[in-house]
């Protein structure tokens, strides 16, 4: 297993430690090229598909291609034993690094133990683990929630609104991401001086469900001063539009459709902020795994900067694409990490494939 060492780590502009308390890990260097596997959970939404495609594309990227001798991606469904089994199988097969999106934030003790025993680098990202024993890559969900809350309140104050009704749209129950984001949103609201009533509905990060519950909430409560959603952002916009609700500040994720809507309606009051989890995280995780295998010192928790875009900074063709579909996630690349595979790039590449 890795040794706990002191920082700083390699490439700090890319592998930024989470905070000053973050520890550093170091594995003994191995000869490349490496066998790397990605063990995904379920594969039934656009985000995951984009993630898988990014992983495959990045494995062919000249900056890393030569360092990888074998690259495999499997999806196990939301089945913890299957995911743990796949990881263990890859350890048994002699893989050097395994990158994973955990189906649950705990329960990996055994595979962590086996990975350490076999000097395999295990890198959870996106849905990460509640542990400091492995190197992980993620965006800071608490910071995300806080940013959403603060931005929305700031816009409201600017409009001279200091009290009123806010609609919070939550994600899938029982998930740590939902928990953290909601916690931070509500902390931000509590910290604000204003007198806010928060109505919470559950949208499961799913556009359809979100659209339905937001429509219900509007039917019952009449009007909200702002909406803070942690997913299913397209559904929020649809529901507002359909019910004839006036445009208000909305916080949401980074779906292209949401950004298109903000760009179109911000002048009418849709003062939006779009922050999202990026499918490109997988590339950062792959890069971190290779770096760890090369023997570099790595932060235990790698923080990938939040890709924030507000109505003030949207630019067609740069951080959203008006002619591309709604569903794909706009943020994909991380230039400081030399991860330059943009969302549209993946689409364009594939459209070539199609012909």
């Amino acid at each position: 297993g890795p040794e706990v060492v002191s920082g700083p780590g390699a490439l700090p502009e890319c592998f930024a430690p989470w905070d000053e308390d973050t520890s550093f890990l170091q594995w003994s260097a191995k000869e490349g090229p490496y066998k790397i596997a990605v063990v995904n959970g379920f594969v039934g939404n656009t985000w995951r598909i984009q993630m898988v495609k990014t992983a495959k594309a990045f494995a062919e990227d000249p900056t890393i291609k030569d360092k990888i001798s074998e690259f495999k991606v499997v999806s196990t469904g939301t089945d913890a034993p299957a995911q743990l089994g796949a990881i263990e199988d890859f350890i048994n097969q002699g893989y050097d690094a395994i990158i994973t999106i955990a189906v649950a934030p705990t329960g990996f003790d055994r595979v962590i133990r086996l990975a350490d025993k076999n000097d395999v680098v295990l890198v959870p990202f996106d849905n990460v683990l509640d542990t400091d024993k492995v190197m992980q890559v993620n965006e800071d969900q608490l910071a995300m929630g806080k940013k959403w809350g603060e931005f929305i309140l700031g816009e409201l104050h600017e409009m001279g609104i200091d009290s009123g009704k806010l609609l919070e749209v939550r994600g899938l129950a029982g998930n740590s991401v939902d928990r953290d984001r909601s916690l931070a949103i509500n902390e931000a609201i509590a910290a604000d001086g204003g007198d806010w009533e928060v109505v919470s509905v559950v949208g499961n990060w799913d556009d359809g469900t979100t659209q339905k519950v937001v429509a219900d909430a509007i039917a019952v409560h009449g009007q909200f001063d702002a909406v803070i959603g942690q997913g299913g952002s397209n559904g929020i916009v649809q529901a507002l539009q359909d019910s004839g609700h006036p445009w208000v500040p909305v916080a949401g994720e980074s779906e292209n459709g949401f950004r298109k809507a903000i760009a179109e309606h911000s002048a009418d009051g849709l003062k939006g902020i779009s922050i999202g989890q990026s499918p490109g995280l997988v590339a950062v995780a792959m890069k971190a795994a290779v770096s760890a295998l090369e023997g570099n010192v790595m932060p235990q928790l790698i923080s990938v900067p939040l890709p924030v875009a507000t109505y003030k900074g949207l630019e067609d063709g740069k951080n959203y694409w008006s002619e591309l579909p709604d569903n794909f996630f706009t943020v994909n690349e991380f230039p400081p990490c030399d991860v330059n595979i943009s969302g549209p790039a993946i689409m364009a590449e594939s459209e070539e494939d199609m012909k």
Partner: protein
Amino acid sequence: MTRWIGQNRGFAAALALFLALYLSYHLMHPRGFSTAVLVQNSNELVAIGFVAMAQTVPVLLGGLDLSVGAIMTLAACVASWLLDGTPLQIAFGMIATLAVGTAFGLLNGLIVVYGRLQPIIATLATGAIAIGLALLIRPNPGGNVDGDLNWALTNSVFDFAETYGIGQDGEATWLAPFVNIPLPLILLFGMACLVWLPFKRTVTGRTIYAIGSAEGAAFASGLPINRARIAAFTLAGFFAACGGLYLAIQTSTGNADVVQAGAYTLNSIAAVVLGGTALLGGTGGVIASILGAMILRAVSFYFRILDIDPLLQPLIEGIVLLAAVSAVAFRTFRVKNQLELFR
């Protein structure tokens, strides 16, 4: 032997299919035919194996239990609070976990029998209740499970003995023939042999088959119909709880995951069918369903050794499942008296 194959054609076919799949997986695996691979495979099997066992019992009656995945989840959430502390506390925790699942199964049985509801729809509803309870117990995933327990039960007999200092830490000669057997396999098949096989040889057990085969006849013969029905669902609850208990130990976690619960329920039905148990009831058995679960798992093993486009995996999984269950079509086309098709 020929009679056995004749009367257990589904099981024999499933066994052949599994052996073909599994042996070629080992052949292609860089570390095939080793304890490590066997242990890994078995760990993956236990939870779905138990849930498939659970599903089998109501299916033998001619009913379905759509709550088995949810009961497993509920049990795992309960276990995630109770499996830490002194050995006595842990033992109590295990018993309590199994008791919760069994009690829930009993509740299913009582509703089906005294509420006179169709099992499939009653358990659809109680499944929601079980998930709700699981979410109350574990609003967020987490848990504390004794680390030794986790290690000992998810490895081979040797590691188990070593962890608990049995048989000179696993070095004893009397243990030698067994040291390489994965403990999870022993738990799974042990439970099947200790609970199911004897149960099958009781009047209640036999009544379960009788109900699935000809309910009116079972009643007219004076068999204990209600008792058997209740027993079937209770046993389903018990086996599902075994799955949940193992899941909690394996992952040190309780996770009230609705999607996972649903997936386990549906996979349990697939496993039952693949094992050769008729959904109409009356024929088949629990061991066959474990075999069905093994086939399901073995199919997914291939994605880890073959180079298959990750985005094609769900498609291939679906096609393999459809193909496997459609294999019975060959029987359909061979049937000469079409009345046999309409049971």
